[in-house]
């Protein structure tokens, strides 16, 4: 289990990125959901030993990730939000390099590991291609392959599907779901709600540097059962609805607005039909609360 206690971080510019973050992350896939600028990447960087917090502690298997950086790095696999590779190296050379940095020195073992990783991320046919010519999806898959070297106990994946097309995203979801080991902690930071709902057994929502909720997605959905309604309205009707109940989301559709509202006790109007709540509804509900 990963335990985060009272983590604070303020940048030199004065931006208070993390405010007293406390979180317990059990083994399995854990989603950290939040809008852009919420502090997700700052938290991920601290966990990945790349950034020093102002205060607080992070523990994993009796290791203090803040003070015992080398030990922390031994158990860490990290896929950052923005990253690059040496463009003149091939996929195979890149993985060999990271495997050697991780401490896999025996050539035979390394070869079999690199082969298995390339197969796992479906890059065997591109193994001798230079990484500089890879598409975004291929780079992301190579990124996850390097993060899996050495069977990390803590796998940190920061916004892995941002910028990927739907097909690559589906492929990446499957890849992540298949790769995590039962005993390891996979921390997936994202602003895409479907990433969390598709993959994670537990999640937390972060906003303006604070954790505003932490629960299982099923529990979150249970909270909104029989409370979410949908209707297609004109702009004028929306103002009337807003005064009666809480608007979750609105979307233009054929010149009308398709709106979702939360109303726990009664139907907001005749135009409304009850719908199954989603994590997105839970997220919007929470964000508007906070």
């Amino acid at each position: 289990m990963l335990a985060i206690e009272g983590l604070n971080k303020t940048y030199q510019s004065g931006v208070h990125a993390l405010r007293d973050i406390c979180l317990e992350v059990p083994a399995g896939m854990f989603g950290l959901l939040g809008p852009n600028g919420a502090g997700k990447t700052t938290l991920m960087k601290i966990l990945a030993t790349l950034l020093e917090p102002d205060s607080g502690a992070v523990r994993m298997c009796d290791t203090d990730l803040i003070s015992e950086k080398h030990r922390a790095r031994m158990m860490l696999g990290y896929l950052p939000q923005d990253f690059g590779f040496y463009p003149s190296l091939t996929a195979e050379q890149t993985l060999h390099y990271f495997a050697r940095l991780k401490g896999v020195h025996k050539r035979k073992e390394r070869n079999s590991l690199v082969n298995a990783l390339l197969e796992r991320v479906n890059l065997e046919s591109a193994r001798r291609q230079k990484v500089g010519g890879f598409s975004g999806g291929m780079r992301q898959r190579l990124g996850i392959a390097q993060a899996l070297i050495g069977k990390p106990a803590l796998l940190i994946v920061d916004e892995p599907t941002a910028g990927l097309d739907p097909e690559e995203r589906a492929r990446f979801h499957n890849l992540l779901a298949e790769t995590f080991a039962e005993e390891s902690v996979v921390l997936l930071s994202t602003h895409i709600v479907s990433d969390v709902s598709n993959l994670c057994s537990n999640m937390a929502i972060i906003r303006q540097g604070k954790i505003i909720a932490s629960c299982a997605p099923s529990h979150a959905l249970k909270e909104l059962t029989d409370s979410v309604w949908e209707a297609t309205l004109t702009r004028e009707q929306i103002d009337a609805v807003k005064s009666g109940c809480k608007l979750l989301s609105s979307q233009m559709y054929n010149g009308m607005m398709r709106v979702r509202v939360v109303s726990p006790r009664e139907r907001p109007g005749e135009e409304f039909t009850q719908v199954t709540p989603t994590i997105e509804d839970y997220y919007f509900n929470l964000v508007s609360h906070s």
Partner: protein
Amino acid sequence: MVNPFHTSFFAVFRTEVLLNLRRVAPYVMALLCGGNALLWWGWGPAKGRGLATNSEAFIAGVLPIYAFMTLPLFTAVIMADPVIRDFRAEIGPLIFSKPVGRAIYLLGKFFGSFFVLACGQAAFVVTLFVLQWFSRPGVTTLQEVKVVPYFKHFLVFVIISHLVLAAFYFAVGTLSRNAKIVYALGVCFYPLIISYNIFFLNGLPLSWRRILDPLLMRWAQKDGDVHTLSAEAFNQLVVTYDSELIINRAVMLLIAAGILTMVYRRFIIAEPPQKIHFSFINLSTASERISFEPEINWIEPDHEVRRTPLPIVNVAAPGIRGSLRKLVAALAIEFRLLLSERSLVVIIPLAVVLSTMEVIFWRVRGDGSYSAAYVSHIAQNLVLFMIGISIFYVGEALQRDRDLNIEPLVWSQPIPNFVLLFSKFLATLLVVFALLISVGLIAMVTQALKGNGPFELTAYLRVYIWILIPNAIFLSAAAMFLKVLLRDRYLTYIAAIGIGGGLFYLYSQGHNGWLYNPLLFRLWKYEDLLSGNNLSQIAQHRAYVLVIALVLVALAHLFYERRSTLWVRS
């Protein structure tokens, strides 16, 4: 009327100028050109002979030689990739989706880069121009301040010559989309131009020689040897352009225009087609075609992830042995990355050529031993290149991970900081050693070919062990320390140039003590390395320098941005 500053041409031109201003090459060129002018002024052939350095004959005589020396390499470096850069950054399609014609685009690119090139080259005449107000013992300056001759002759003798060369390099780079071909042509410039002179021009009548000489090296031949003139007559000479020179320049301008027209006609916006692979003729019924398109490497759009089990591997426990093996791995990659630096293709051959030029083309006086004289010459000539290469490539190696955004991946690996730092330090050192070995080997071969025997390997080893290798270690360590401390590569270059320039100025003023002369510049002779008191002094100095290098490396390790242990919390 259309405002010329609001045209598409000016937009492309301006952007190209701005892009070039973010490169190192124009500044290095301007610095070298300014230094070159300073040498011509204070230490050149005019010194002590009463020839005025601001006389028209001196200016017009110096410029063709200046246009010939080292400038063609910079022309190749700057003109090679204006178009390649856009295609590499995949910005080409964005530009061509706007109403910008091919001609406007190509001319904007060409003249934008050429403008920067010309500005860098102009550092020479600007420095000479400014030096009119300075005096130095032995240097004569006419009272009357000259303005027009500097810029007029620069335009005629340098700019037009390099316009042809620039058009040629630009054409090769744009049409081949391969900058390395241009760099190779830049390196081959001297053998090609010398061969052109010897095998073609020398067989022609004098007037044709003058018309077809692109760099105007033979322009003064017709008027006899100006060096036989008295200083007074030389200083009063007025330089006029005769018809042959005017024809020469007109021909050069026409050639440049012709080359640019050819580029316009052959330039295509799309990526060049893939190489066609020819099939083997065999008895198969499918071999009716003589060529086939290469197979497209499709990745199947299957969403299923294969359940390939990852093998269990042994991960080395933390310790010195494991860290050393990681250092070897990182060093191998760093060295490979350094070798793939495009600038190395130009800089190493240039350094080798200029360091060995003296022993190849001039007579070496071996008073005691020829080997000692040869190795002493190359050791002196190598100083500047060792400084430049160490500072530049250590800076590049330390900055590369940040530029490529690979830092978060590498820094989150379980590797000690010394692995990251030393791999870059040692890789640069290996490049410098490669330069030292190449230059040494060429000097040995030259000595053998010129029959300057006997050949003594120990003479070479002495100079290398006592002087060159400790200098290389010190320079790489100092460059690494500066880069780690200042964090910014350009700031490092500026600081290094400032410190180096200041020290060399001090040495030239006579303040040359071994305490603050880590390279032993002008403080050793070959005889000092043989034995006795002088050798023990040099040994002490080398130990002193290596200790400083060690301290600098330790400080770099201490100040390195990546933290391995808990750092002070605010």
